[in-house]
Structures are given as structure tokens and as C-alpha cells.
């Protein structure tokens, strides 16, 4: 810990705001881990790194279904008014969390109707019915529709067919800026979120063109900072959320090789906290469960490249025996299950002292999926741009991005949890595709469906 590793020392005797906040969180985390060990009669000592076996945490999803359903279908109080422009996001958080936890029997038709009503006549989706189109709810709507498109619920891929691809494409093109970035809406701010949201939606729905991509890769590469991570814009501070956006945007067009991979890898690994086990979002900030996905997925997206660099520099045998997802999987899962999961509420919190919410439930479960995955993303040390535009076949680098290894012969990572009194493997969860953050099988189905329609813009 924290359960498995020693905490890094804080040599400073001085008290600064950063250090005080960090120490407060560490104390709480440590005492929770200690209580967890005692409760399970373990002889291990939290934070000592003594190597004693760690008991399996409890992960009871019984209440999750009610939590996710209530989040979508029970009216929220006026305390949530500030989310009025982000309602499509909430459907994504809940349906993606549900898809990963195998909770899918929601009223999918009503969710689809809501998203249909939020689609803007001039292309893209607004955060709710009648709102201006914005890239964030556009991504959220497309990802939700792909997750919802299940056989037996809908016929003839109805949720996917409601997306108007031609107006979507024209709208995406209208958001492009001369520098190669994307505004998140007309007359709105430009940052690397815009790049990810625009490119991932275009790639998913098979409307990506060289014109849409022009300049985008170079601009994203400029966001990599001296620390190795990516910032929201060139010059700003490296940040887990923006780093995910930049790396996943490049991954979805086969261009991860545009970045300094060694610097990026180490920066992302540095974000994993020795005592807590979870990730922080920036250097010297506090742990937060949503970065389990933002930072964890970056390392998953780099896995194929990591392995191929190892093969090139050392030997094929060392490369084939390494775990190319370099973060400490067990420590991350310890943080999520022991510190952040609220079984009675049925969701995850950002840290133990917070309240659960749909956003952190989505990104914690997505992080669990990444920590549990074994498939490599094919190496992208070179640019594979021509492949990005295949209008008929799904580019290979979009497919097997994190999963349970089914069919690959790989051994899944073992992390037992206690569910209803019995020890089970975490395989009770489904896996996510780390590029799109959509449940893996649904994601593949979506990609194949839009390929079957062809690219109307090429």
C-alpha cells in the first residue's frame, strides 16, 4: 500500500499550503488502510512496505444500479442547477459506469430520446434540449448512444442512426482554428479537450478527413511541457485530464509518436502516489480517483509503444515478459476499493472524505478497467496517419485497446474482491476501450457500424 509500498518522505519541516493539505490527506488514508487491515486480521502494517499479504477488499455493486438509475431518472434538486448545461454528460457518466459494471437495463429509449432532442439542427449536440452545440456533450452523446446500442433493446442500430453525420462534420470543421486547435463551441474557448472531443467523435462516426486533421497533431504536440505531461494549451502546466485528451486524440489517429514518449511515460508514472496508491492530476496536488482513468489510460495507451521500445533496445524475450502497463495496478485498485468505494451509496468518491458522485463513479470504474486490462495498444512509435483514414476497415490501433485479453492468450491480471461474501475475480466488470472510453464490445460494434456506412466526407 500504501498498502503495498512505503510512503515517499516529506523532508520539509516547514509548513506550506501544499504540504499541509497533503499531510492531512495522508493521515486519513493511512488510518483507513490500517483499519482495513485490522478488520481483516492482517499482520501487514500500512505504509511499511513489509510485503505481508494484503486481504481482498469488498466490492458490493448491489446498490450501484439504484444509484445510477436515480442519477438519471430522479429529478435533481436546485443545488444541481449549475449542471444545466451538462446534462448529456450525466447520461454518459451513468451509462458508461453501468456498461462497465454490467448494469445495462436502464430505460435506454428515454435516454436516446433525450439525446435526440439535444442534437442541434446545425450539427453536434448541446448539453440539453435547445442548447447551443458544444463538443463535450457531443462526445458524451455519441459515446452514450454507442453504449446504449444493444441488441434486444434496439433494432437496426437506431441510436447510432440518429446522429446526423454530415451536419456534425460541417460543424466540427467550423470549430477548427488556424493554429490547429478546436473551439469547444462557436465563439468558445480552445484547448486540448477540443482536439480530443472533435477527433474522437470524427473517428468513431467515420467522418475523419485530412482536412479535419490538418495541423491538429502538431498543435497537440506543442502542449507537451518540460515536465513531460500535456497542458490545456502550450505554455500551461502539465495536467492529467489534458494529458489524457492529448494522448488519446493522437492515439485515435495513430500519431502518439509525435510526442516525447519517455518523458510522457515518466510524468504519468510520477502521478501515482506511493502512500495513497491513486493518482494525482498535477505535480504536488492531491490524489483524486478520476485520475485513475485520466493518468492510468495514458499509460495503457502507451503500452504497445513501451513494449516495442523495450524489444528494440534490449531483447525480444525481456519485452515479451514485461508488463507494459507500468503503473502499480494493485495499489491503484487498493485506493479505489478501500478508500473511494461507498458500497451503501453504490458509487465512488474522489477521496475518502468526499461524497460519491456520478462523474467519479464513471472514471473510477474506467480506471479499474484500465488497471485490470492486459491487451497492448499496437505500437505507435512511428506515425500511422494513412491508416487513420481507412473508410471501410476499423484501423487496427483502435481495436484491442485494453480488455480482458479474451482470445489473445494473455493472462488477466488477478485482483480478487469480496462480493456477497465470496471471493471473486474482478472479471465481474466489463472492459473499456481506452481511446474512446466506451465499453469495449459496444465500442467495436459502433466503429464497425459506421464503417459499414462508409465515410460520406471522403
Amino acid at each position, binding site marked *: 500500500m500504501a498498502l503495498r509500498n*512505503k510512503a515517499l*518522505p516529506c*523532508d*520539509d519541516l*516547514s509548513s506550506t*499550503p*501544499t*504540504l499541509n493539505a497533503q499531510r492531512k490527506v495522508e493521515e486519513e488514508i493511512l488510518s483507513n488502510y490500517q483499519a482495513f487491515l485490522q478488520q481483516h486480521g492482517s499482520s501487514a502494517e500500512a505504509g511499511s*512496505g513489509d510485503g505481508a499479504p494484503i486481504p481482498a477488499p469488498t466490492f458490493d455493486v448491489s446498490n450501484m444500479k439504484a444509484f445510477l438509475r436515480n*442519477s*438519471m*431518472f430522479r*429529478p*435533481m*434538486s*436546485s443545488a*444541481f*442547477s*449549475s449542471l*444545466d*448545461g*451538462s*446534462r448529456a454528460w*450525466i*447520461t454518459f457518466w451513468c451509462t458508461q459506469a453501468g456498461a462497465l459494471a454490467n448494469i445495462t437495463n436502464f*430505460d435506454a429509449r*428515454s*435516454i436516446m430520446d*433525450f439525446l435526440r*432532442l439535444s442534437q442541434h439542427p446545425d450539427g453536434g449536440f*448541446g448539453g*440539453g*434540449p435547445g442548447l*447551443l452545440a458544444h463538443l463535450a456533450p457531443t462526445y458524451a452523446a455519441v459515446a452514450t448512444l454507442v453504449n446504449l446500442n444493444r441488441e434486444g433493446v434496439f433494432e437496426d442500430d437506431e441510436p447510432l442512426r440518429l446522429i446526423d453525420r454530415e451536419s456534425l462534420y460541417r460543424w466540427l470543421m467550423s470549430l477548427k482554428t488556424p493554429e490547429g486547435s478546436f473551439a469547444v463551441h462557436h*465563439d468558445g*474557448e480552445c484547448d486540448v479537450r477540443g482536439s480530443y472531443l472533435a477527433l474522437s467523435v470524427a473517428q468513431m462516426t467515420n467522418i475523419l478527413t485530412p482536412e479535419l486533421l490538418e495541423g491538429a497533431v502538431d498543435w497537440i504536440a506543442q502542449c507537451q511541457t*518540460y*515536465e*513531460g505531461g500535456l497542458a*490545456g*494549451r502550450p*505554455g*500551461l*502546466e*502539465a495536467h492529467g485530464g489534458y494529458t489524457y485528451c492529448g494522448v488519446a486524440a493522437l492515439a485515435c489517429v495513430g500519431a502518439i509518436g509525435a510526442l516525447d514518449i519517455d518523458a510522457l511515460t515518466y510524468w504519468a508514472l*510520477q502521478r*501515482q502516489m*506511493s502512500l495513497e496508491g491513486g493518482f494525482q492530476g*498535477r*505535480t*504536488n*496536488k492531491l490524489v483524486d480517483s478520476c485520475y485513475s482513468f485520466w493518468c492510468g489510460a495514458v499509460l495503457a495507451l502507451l503500452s504497445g509503444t513501451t513494449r516495442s521500445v*523495450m524489444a528494440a*533496445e*534490449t531483447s525480444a524475450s*525481456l519485452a515479451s515478459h*514485461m508488463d507494459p502497463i*507500468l*503503473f*502499480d495496478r494493485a495499489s491503484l485498485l487498493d485506493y479505489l476499493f478501500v478508500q473511494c468505494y461507498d458500497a451503501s451509496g453504490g458509487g465512488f468518491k474522489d477521496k475518502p472524505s468526499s461524497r460519491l458522485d456520478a462523474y467519479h463513479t464513471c472514471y473510477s470504474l474506467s480506471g479499474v478497467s484500465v488497471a485490470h486490462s492486459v491487451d497492448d495498444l499496437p505500437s505507435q512509435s512511428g506515425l500511422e496517419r494513412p491508416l487513420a483514414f481507412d473508410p471501410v476497415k476499423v484501423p487496427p490501433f483502435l481495436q484491442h485497446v485494453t480488455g480482458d485479453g479474451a482470445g489473445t492468450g494473455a493472462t488477466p491480471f488477478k485482483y480478487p474482491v469480496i462480493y456477497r461474501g465470496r471471493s471473486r475475480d474482478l472479471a465481474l466488470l466489463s472492459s473499456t476501450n481506452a481511446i474512446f472510453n466506451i465499453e469495449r464490445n459496444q465500442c467495436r460494434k459502433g466503429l464497425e457500424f459506421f464503417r459499414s456506412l462508409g465515410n460520406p466526407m471522403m
Partner: protein
Amino acid sequence: MRGGPVPGRAVRAPPLQRPASGLPGQLPAEIEGKLLCEIPELSDITPLPQLETETPVVKILHSDSFDDALSYFRAIVQSGEVSMRALLITSYAAIVCPSHYSVWQYRRKLLAQLKVDPHREIEFVQAILLDNWKNYQLWYHRQQLVASIGGRSDERDITDSCFEHDAKNYHAWSHRQWFLRTYPPPSWLVEERAYCDRLLSEDVRNNSAWNQRMFVLLHTPRDHPEEFGQILTAELNYTLEKLNAAPSNESGWNYLRGLYTKFPGPWDAGFFATISASCDALLLRESQSPHLNAFMFHFYRDWAARQGDVSIMAPSVTIAKLLRDEIDTIRAKYWDMMHERVVAALAAAATTA
């Protein structure tokens, strides 16, 4: 307490004032505390309720004032009304829901077409910003306003105020960098470095302040290598001093690595000597520091690549093992991989030699 004064600038921004009552687009009638549906001048507008699906999804039960403002807002958007009373309606909507990007976008259209004085609007957005520092829409709106007056507003002041509460606020740093890049005040490089120093003297682990120091460096002209070399050397010494006082501060180590990776030049040899001497000295008292050791591992490897001399990275082999097995075990897989890569590189060099 704040540190020393920043040369050329007031020590502290004047406290921000909430504007006196009165909203842009205000009607002659007294509207204080009234809902829009109670204002006679708006009586010919039919408010549009929120469109919902048959089974409402993620429905929010808003307050009356929220529903009132947004219903009128939807009505004017639908009719495309451009008028002072439309501006008033967006004022109401922006106050009840500052994160509503549609409201701000429509409002900017109105401001431009009605030729509203941007200074007055800056006051308005400032009043809302004071309670909503983490809001993309407000900062973007402010940026557009400042641009419309050609940058004639020192935006360092408002960001200073924000950093009083939250010295790592990402939006405020973004705004500040935009301002400095677009409308650079005279001698801002010197002032900004001093400002970062002040923030670091309060919290040496404020990574945003370190990042801003790098921003200053990246914008420092390099046409006189000697001068730039002096600035870099001063930065190097500054960083080593801060690290000596707090060797577990990751921000400082990342900055130190950035200094030599981002700015290669004639000073390279001197830098290498200074850094290795400092690290060796620090190692005497901090031999088990994961931060120091991780830095040294990368340092030897970086310089080997820079000099084209693989043998420079020889010490990295033992350091990687120490990190992997004892002092940075959460990153054991990484250190194991890097250990193998360094060993292989050294072996290949030995064979060639």
C-alpha cells in the same frame, strides 16, 4: 504573508470591488429583487419553458428565479431579439447560471450589436467571477472583453486576486498567460519572475508557479547568448538552492531537468559540472531520497545522449536498482525497464568499443 515587492508593480492588486447595483441592460423601472415575469417592459415576451422528453431524463428542479430567467432567455434566442431588454435577460440568466455557455455566447452577440461599453461589462463579469473562479465561460468572456479594448486593462491584477485564494487555479494561469503573450507589458519578464519567486517563497511546492517561471524563460529573447546564459545560470542556482532546502519537492526536480533539456547551449559543460557537484553533495545527506535518485538516474542518461557518450550513464545502473528494490517500489516496473535499457545500452557500447 506575502513576500517582497515586485519591481515596477504595486505589491498587491487593489481589492476587487463588486460593482454598485445596476445590471447592463437595466431598464428604467426599479427591478431589484423582481422576477422577469413581473417586469412590465417584458410583458409582450412569452417565456419558453424547457423542452423535455416524455420521460424526463436528468431533469433538474430549478428555483423559480432560474426557471424565470432561462425561460425568457430561450424566448429571445428563438426570436433572435437584439435589444437592451434582451441584454437584461441574459444578465439574469448569467447570474442564476454562470456556467451556461449558451447564455454567454448570445450575450456577446448582443454586446457587439448594441455597442455596449466593454468596461462596464468587465465590471459585470468580475462580480460573478469573484464567486466562480473555476469557470471556463467567465474567463473566456473576460478575455474577449479585454481583447475588445486592445488589452488596456492589466489582467495581472485579477489573476493576483484569484491566486490569493487559490494559487494553482488553472483558469487564472491560462488567462494570465494569454494576457502576457498577447499584450506584453513593458518589463513583464522581470516582473513575472519576481512574482513567481514571491509565490514560491510562500509555497515552494506550488508547481503552477514553477511552470510560470518556465513560461517566462521560454519567452525570454535568446538573441544574445551570453545574456541568456547568465539568466539560465541564475535560474539553475536558484533551483538548486530551493532543492537544497526541500529535496523532496518534485516540482523543483522537474524544473531542474527542464532547464537543461529545453535549453541546450554553450553553457552545457558548466551546467553538467554544477548539477553533478550539487547532487553529489546532497547525496551525502539524502542518500535514500527517491526524488534525488530519480533525478540523477535521468540526469546521467540525458547527458549521455546529449554528449553522444553512453559511458556517462554508467552510474544509472545502480541507481535504478536502488529505486526499484528499495526506495520507489510503486514504480518498480518502470525502474526495472529502465535498468534493462541502460544495461543494454552500456553493453552495446562496450561491444562497439
